[in-house]
């Protein structure tokens, strides 16, 4: 098990560096000028100075190494300093990745917007799992019953219909016609008491449901398939023949074995919902990381795009690693050493 984990780590770290290089290189190819949006009256020498100050004058590999250093060393140090209220080294002099548009450090922007995304995305994933598991289990147990047929159909619809369509439809139905929920997310809302909490919940319901339905659709099919695989195995028949209660057979034997691949799929799906959040935040105008990415791309704010994309990549690799290790822990057959 240790060897297995070590080998997985050994692949994850170089992959991370290669991806960081790809992201950095790709964006560096951009024929982009951060001073392009500034007024035309600014003389070229001043523009040149501005460009220098943003670090554009140096050759590619120096900028890449600097960015790596900023991302992996400077920013975490800053984070530690702020979290624990201490000073490490010469923090005032430390160069930080700054957004071209707002001039503020990229990390600050990300930290500011992270909670919204995490709330919406996290809630939707949890709700999705809570819906998918029972639906999948019952569908598999009562295969071909009306519950199964309807469930399968709803799942198929759920992951065929794109999230941007469901979001828009839900807005049309629940906000425009019924007026139950607000269609635009109030980003300045603060949760101070029970009332404001309830308002927060009301404005979160639509985006959460959109993502939750999509996740639940995919996951429930997978749970159903995994349960079906196990329900037809001989060991289930043996357990029943031994006289065990049906509930025990189902919940203790079959479920445990079926959930192993499901757990890894859940872990692997985390990066996907972050990607899905990009679209949902556009529709509902939630001020999360997804919206930040779109704004950055449209505004050609390269450092912000680089950092955000790289964070996504780190998330994917981390989740893959966790999924692999979880699978190794849960399924003893996988640990071939």
């Amino acid at each position: 098990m240790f060897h297995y984990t070590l080998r997985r780590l050994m692949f994850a770290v170089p992959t991370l560096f290669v991806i960081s290089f790809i992201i950095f290189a790709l964006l560096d190819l951009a024929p982009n000028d951060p001073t392009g949006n500034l007024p035309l009256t600014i003389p070229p020498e001043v523009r040149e100075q501005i460009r220098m100050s943003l670090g554009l004058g140096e050759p590619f590999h120096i900028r890449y190494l600097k960015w790596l250093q900023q991302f992996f060393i400077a920013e975490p140090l800053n984070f530690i300093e702020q979290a624990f209220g201490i000073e490490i080294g010469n923090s005032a002099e430390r160069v930080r990745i700054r957004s071209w548009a707002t001039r503020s450090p990229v990390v600050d922007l990300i930290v500011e917007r992270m909670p919204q995304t995490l709330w919406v995305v996290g809630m939707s994933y949890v709700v999705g799992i809570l819906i998918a598991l029972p639906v999948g289990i019952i569908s598999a147990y009562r295969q071909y019953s009306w519950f199964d047929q309807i469930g399968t159909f709803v799942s198929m619809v759920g992951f065929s219909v794109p999230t941007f369509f469901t979001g828009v439809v839900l807005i049309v139905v629940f906000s425009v016609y019924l007026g139950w929920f607000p269609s635009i997310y109030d980003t300045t809302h603060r949760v101070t008491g029970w009332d404001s909490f309830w308002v927060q919940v009301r404005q979160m319901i639509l985006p959460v449901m959109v993502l939750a339905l999509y996740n639940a659709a995919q996951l429930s099919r997978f749970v159903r398939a995994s349960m079906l695989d196990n329900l037809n195995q001989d060991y289930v028949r043996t357990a029943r023949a031994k006289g065990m209660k049906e509930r025990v057979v189902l919940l203790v034997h079959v479920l445990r074995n079926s959930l192993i691949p499901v757990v890894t799929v859940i872990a692997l799906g985390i990066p996907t919902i972050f990607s899905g959040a990009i679209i949902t935040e556009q529709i509902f105008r939630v001020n999360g990381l997804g919206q930040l990415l779109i704004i950055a791309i449209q505004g050609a704010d390269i450092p912000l795009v680089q950092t955000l994309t790289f964070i996504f990549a780190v998330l994917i690799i981390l989740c893959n690693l966790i999924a692999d290790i979880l699978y190794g822990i849960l399924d003893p057959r996988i640990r071939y050493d």
Partner: protein
Amino acid sequence: MIDQVSVAPEKVIPPAPGSPVAAEPRKQSTLTADVWRQFRQHKGGVMGAIVFLTIIFLVVFGPYIHGVDPSALNVRERNAGISLAHPMGTDNLGRDTFAQILAGGRTSLSVGVTAMLLSLFVGTTIGVLAGYFKKLEGPLMRLTDLFLALPLLPLLLVIIMLFRDTLRRSFGPETGIFMLIVFVIGITSWMQTARIVRGAVLSVKEQEFVLAAKSIGTRERRIITRHILPNVLSPIMVSATLGIATAIITESALSFLGLGFPSDFPTWGRLLFDGVNFMQINPSRVIWPGLAISLTVLSVNYIGDGIRDALDPRIRGR
């Protein structure tokens, strides 16, 4: 016991009991015919196939039947409801929504199919090479893992933002964007196919008929084309149908985020994007393209399900 039974091989052994004497030529029971028969029993798959073919028919021949120019402005008839002349209403500039949907369908479907073919080709090649040649398996699978670790949506957006203008200048606006989007979707969705094909190739490679071909002296290239590929067709076909679905959704998502086709070349995603602003006044502008996307993707997914079940030898009554 065994010494008594002796058969001289000059005598023709009669055919196995039950099979007809070869007087009339028997209808060939090929694997394809069996699979088709099994597919026909899968209700969802058949429905999906009918719906999908209808959509294709409408999209290809519809403009000739309906005859309305999708970009014709008719401001007096703007935001009209459903009528005979405009079966889906009009938008805020008076353009006929139905004609736009048909035109958008052509683009969306052609992007979907072409991108799928590209990703299928890349995925199958990499999968076969990785599965058959042990030396290539390591590097190719690491490459696949690398691509799988890339955050796709952000990178897609970035690539399109970067190269949209250059391609537009070189190849003209329509072809340029088409090539860019097809290329970008194809390059980023081959990994699932590659993994599945590699798994299938690994299991087929161990079968004895491949060993038999080696003992005959068949060259490797022929072994792959004659023995391995025909036997890994099932996962490839399932990947193909699901690939169309993914490609259509990805293209629509890109257009919806404003980074797909420009507004003069409507696709379903673009129509949705344009319609969002007018959602309160004219919700049909959003409903019809969304329905078109959903219906197409749903039918393709059902077809894929049907094919997968039909190709599964455990379900087929063999």
